[in-house]
């Protein structure tokens, strides 16, 4: 590929949009954008990619599968101490006594620190009280047992529906409270041809990351190094620096490492009390300290997706257009009363008079943390199931109903393509023999998300190095928490340099490298891809300069392609060209420029999913048998990894729809199923046949036009499963998870 080395001053004309999936029409258009001075010229829909969008393997796949990848849990040093946290046994109260001396005197103990002071409030079962470091976990455990912590317990509540502010529920589980008057919505509802109302519930879901929270802290004088399982290396650095300073501990330099992370799903943005405790213990003990949480702590102390109670009423006109939409919801949050808000799709209701309200209800439990599309799976479940009920009442097919009301063109195309591929019409037309044991049903639901990434303040960067021996390095200080940032870096760099992806060594997760965003809100790839591209583009220019001089040709004739660099017939193999570099490698610092000021083709991402279920009417057990996702994420960079991420979201969605539920013991305020034996996550033998079709959309908002993918596919999956169950049974199940007892109860109440 060869470009003009600079962007023209009067802007670049590019082709944005997408090529139709299957038989769907192409939607391409020309647009003039003005890249910032110094940025790489934009890729667009006509760029002939050699690596981008192909099936490149995960660059660290072998390292992970073979155990060579070192996670925070794997880091170890000579003389390193192990640590644990003593946690509160009451759900609410005040710490009235804390005796640490006996623990300090125990054999093998290097440090004991208080994490709460006497008189501090205790907010939930599992609130951190003190931490102990010692030579072995046995020693630490013995010492922890010697700590005397006493509490003045207060009455607690771990069921948000029992709170005084909670709405009244009727016998059938519907919210009984009157809707407040609203002229707009009341009028639209009164004028509607068909109206419907329903109450929906979801339960608390825990993140359940395979690697628990925590890490290793190691001081070298006033320099601190931390290996942490985190989604935000730079965030953790800032947080720890601030917290240590507040405690009067001087830190000259602080480096955070997170090269491999065993899942986060939104729970690992903060350093948390565990990382701070590790630093304090390491300081006091004058030795490296490892503090990793155990599984029960992971379930009870590191955040969750709050439960939700949602009610909606809406109306349709005679054409099937939604004309009224009235929504209210309640979030079952932790003690801080935050994070429980619920999002609902807005693209079906552009013609409607609308109202929405939300109230957070605080329980005496661990606070919410963001979890893969916060608020969305809950709200989409409520809204999409409600829409299917409404469509059924009006006698309209759910797909037709969506096609009629969905105001987004991209998803319209995806609905049509997906329905065809899934065999929607045929599957939907099939009726269940009332005498048959197994009933089948199909359902669908939409997805959305809205991030095209951002530049960061100060702007994020990437380092690209080309060495004399031909090695190429791409480095980011941001973390690759699983989705595949490293693979994305390798692919983009390889594309720019005309190499295969495996020639690029991508490294991420050390704050000594250029900064990147926290991996949240599906922003990592869209934020960093343009900086990766820019770094490779700059490095390439330097190499081209050397080769042009060597061959005696003008620079603008030199191309990097197919593993060669040169002009015309004088093409040097990559390694030969790199010999021109000399002992100091080419090093370029790419920068993430702001997104173009011109409007992108689309501001977010769309997507839709289809699900098929089989219900055993004798037992009520639901199995998801088949699922299809159509998902866009701007330009698909690493196709295989993108698909893998969507499949993972579908699995998580099935798990949320059918199994996952935090169960609290009301008396003690403790989680009853705080382990993987009783907190049920879908296992491999319970998975449906999964398919994912990625849809590349050139938004034209930055030089690479990648958009976020982490969250959107998790928005649709639970709703699609719930709609399929509704189709199979003929009655909606409005309370997730859809356990067999609820199915049998619904079948018993079914009007025959």
């Amino acid at each position, binding site marked *: 590929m060869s470009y003009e080395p600079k962007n023209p001053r009067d802007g670049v004309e590019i082709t944005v949009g997408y090529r139709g999936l299957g038989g769907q029409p192409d939607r391409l258009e020309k647009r003039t954008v003005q890249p910032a001075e110094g940025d790489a010229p934009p890729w667009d829909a006509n760029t002939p990619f050699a690596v981008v969008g192909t099936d490149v393997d995960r660059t660290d796949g072998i390292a992970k599968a073979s155990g060579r990848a070192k996670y925070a849990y794997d880091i170890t040093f000579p003389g390193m101490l192990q640590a*644990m946290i003593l*946690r509160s*046994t009451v759900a609410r109260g005040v710490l009235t006594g804390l005796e640490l001396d006996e623990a300090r005197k125990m054999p093998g103990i290097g440090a004991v620190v208080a994490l709460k002071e006497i008189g501090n409030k205790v907010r939930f*079962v599992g609130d951190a009280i003190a931490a102990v470091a010692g030579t072995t*976990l*046995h020693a*630490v*455990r013995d010492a922890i047992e010697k700590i005397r912590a006493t509490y003045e317990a207060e009455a607690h509540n771990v069921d948000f529906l029992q709170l005084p502010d909670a709405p009244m529920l009727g016998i059938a589980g519907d919210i009984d409270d009157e809707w407040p008057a609203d002229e707009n919505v009341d009028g639209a509802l009164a004028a509607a041809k068909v109206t419907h109302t329903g109450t929906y519930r979801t339960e608390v879901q825990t993140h359940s990351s395979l690697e628990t929270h925590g890490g290793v802290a190691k001081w070298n004088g006033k320099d601190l190094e931390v290996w942490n399982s985190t989604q935000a290396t730079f965030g953790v650095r800032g947080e720890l620096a601030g917290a240590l300073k507040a405690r009067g501990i001087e830190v000259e330099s602080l480096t955070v490492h997170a090269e491999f992370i065993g899942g986060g799903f939104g729970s690992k943005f903060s350093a948390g009390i565990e990382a701070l405790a590790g630093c304090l213990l390491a300081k006091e003990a004058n030795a490296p300290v490892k503090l*990793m949480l*155990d599984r*029960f702590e992971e379930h009870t102390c590191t955040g969750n997706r709050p439960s939700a109670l949602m009610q909606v009423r809406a109306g349709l006109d005679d054409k099937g257009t939604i004309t009224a939409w009235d929504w209210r919801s309640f979030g079952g949050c932790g003690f801080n009363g935050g994070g429980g808000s619920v999002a609902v799709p807005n693209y079906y209701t552009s013609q409607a008079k609308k109202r929405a309200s939300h109230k957070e209800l605080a329980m005496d439990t661990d606070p919410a943390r963001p979890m893969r599309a916060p608020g969305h799976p809950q709200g989409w479940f409520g809204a999409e199931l409600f829409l299917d009920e409404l469509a059924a009442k009006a006698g309209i097919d759910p797909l037709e109903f969506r096609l009629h009301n969905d105001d987004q063109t991209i998803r319209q195309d995806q609905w049509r393509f997906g329905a065809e591929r899934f065999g929607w019409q045929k599957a939907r037309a099939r009726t269940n023999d009332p005498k048959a044991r197994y009933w089948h049903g199909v359902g669908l639901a939409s997805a959305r998300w809205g991030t095209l990434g951002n530049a960061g303040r100060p702007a994020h960067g990437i380092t690209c190095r080309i060495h004399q021996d031909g090695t190429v390095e791409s480095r980011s200080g941001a973390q690759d928490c699983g989705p595949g940032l490293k693979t994305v870096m390798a692919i983009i760099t390889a594309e720019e340099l005309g190499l295969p992806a495996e020639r690029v060594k991508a490294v991420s997760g050390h704050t000594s490298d250029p900064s990147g965003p926290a991996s949240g809100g599906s922003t990592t790839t869209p934020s960093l891809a343009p900086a990766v591209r820019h770094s490779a583009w700059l490095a390439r220019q330097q190499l081209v300069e050397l080769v042009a001089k060597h061959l005696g040709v003008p620079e603008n004739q030199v191309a990097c392609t197919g593993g060669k660099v040169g002009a015309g017939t004088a093409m040097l193999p990559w390694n030969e060209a790199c010999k021109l570099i000399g002992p100091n490698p080419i090093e370029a610092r790419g920068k993430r420029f702001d997104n173009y000021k011109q409007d992108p083709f689309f501001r977010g991402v769309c997507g839709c999913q289809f699900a098929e279920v089989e219900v055993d009417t*004798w*037992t*009520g057990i639901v199995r998801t048998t088949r699922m299809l996702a159509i998902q866009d994420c701007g330009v698909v960079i690493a196709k295989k990894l993108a698909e893998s991420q969507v499949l993972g979201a579908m699995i998580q969605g099935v798990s949320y729809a059918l*199994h996952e539920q935090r169960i609290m*013991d009301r*008396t*003690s305020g*403790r989680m*009853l*199923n*705080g382990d993987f*034996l*009783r907190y*049920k996550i*879908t*296992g*491999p*033998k*319970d998975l449906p046949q999964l398919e994912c079709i990625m849809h590349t959309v050139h938004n034209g908002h930055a030089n690479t036009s990648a958009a976020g993918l982490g969250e959107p596919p998790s928005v649709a999956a639970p709703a699609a499963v719930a709609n399929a169950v509704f189709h199979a049974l003929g009655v909606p199940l409005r309370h997730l998870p859809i*356990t*067999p*007892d609820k199915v*049998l109860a619904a079948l018993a109440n079914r009007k025959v």
Partner: protein
Amino acid sequence: MLRLPTFTYHRPKTAAEAVAIASEHGKQAMYVAGGTDLYPNMKRRHQTPTQVISLQDVPGLHAVEVLPDGRTAIGAMVTLTELEKHPHLLQHYPGFAHAVREISTPLLRNMGTIGGNLLLDTRCSYYDQGHEWRESIDFCMKKDGAICWVAPGSPRCWAVQSSDTVPVVCAMEADVELVGNAGTRTQKAGDLYRDDGIQYLTKKPEELLTRLVLPAPGTWKASYLKLRRRDTFDFPILGVGVCLWFEGGIITKANIRLGGAGSYAIPASDSEKLLVGQKLTDELIAAAGAAAMKPARTMDNTDQDVYWRKKVAPVFVARALEACK
């Protein structure tokens, strides 16, 4: 973090030696076979033996052999993986082999043994928790405490029988061989268990289970059907073991045992009575299934809704009977 407490590890070379060590240390001693139940339990301080007696080196516990009278004797140390793949068992005892295959995951079956599975500890939501967890609710009567959190007014423990092989082995009227201080004795497998979540075994603590002896193949058929949330990996929340003896198409004897529905594998006696002297027709299967609702004594101490678990007992009994057709 769950850690194993320290203990002394014994490796006796004979059954008699093992029994002697166990007798010497009394309550401080426990046998370990595969360790897949005992070690996690020790980490949670459910069992706190200071003397752990490995059966690895005890001869005679590691083989499956067909006895001259046609019965099949299985050594207590034979792994579940070996059993599920054993040609003789697959051919002549498909119901039993199926039950073995339903246990846990391949990794655990590689370590877990038939002896360990037959003696599996009973389970409960308030018991199968870490020590610190249990301490914070002042423990429960099964270990260290006084109350049953599942039924606080109850004088007894309601922990649940959770082995997959026990219901079918009891239904088949298999024998177990036990070595004690007085030598070897044989008894019906069904007599090994009692209806109590704590004292769920009738054997003396030092008595060593050495062999399971399955009846000779004949005019009987056995089956096992497991209910659990996920096919991937879960303890049974209902495990139906059935064995029917036929003579000319007529059922002469019927045993139905409900596992996961109480502290022992409960006989579904009403269902059994309906079957005897009859042909196994669809109508009879449905009627016998329906009669199995009553004996299931589900409590709210395991996965899934307590009433639902009782409600589906008839379905599972019917399906298990169907499999004996």
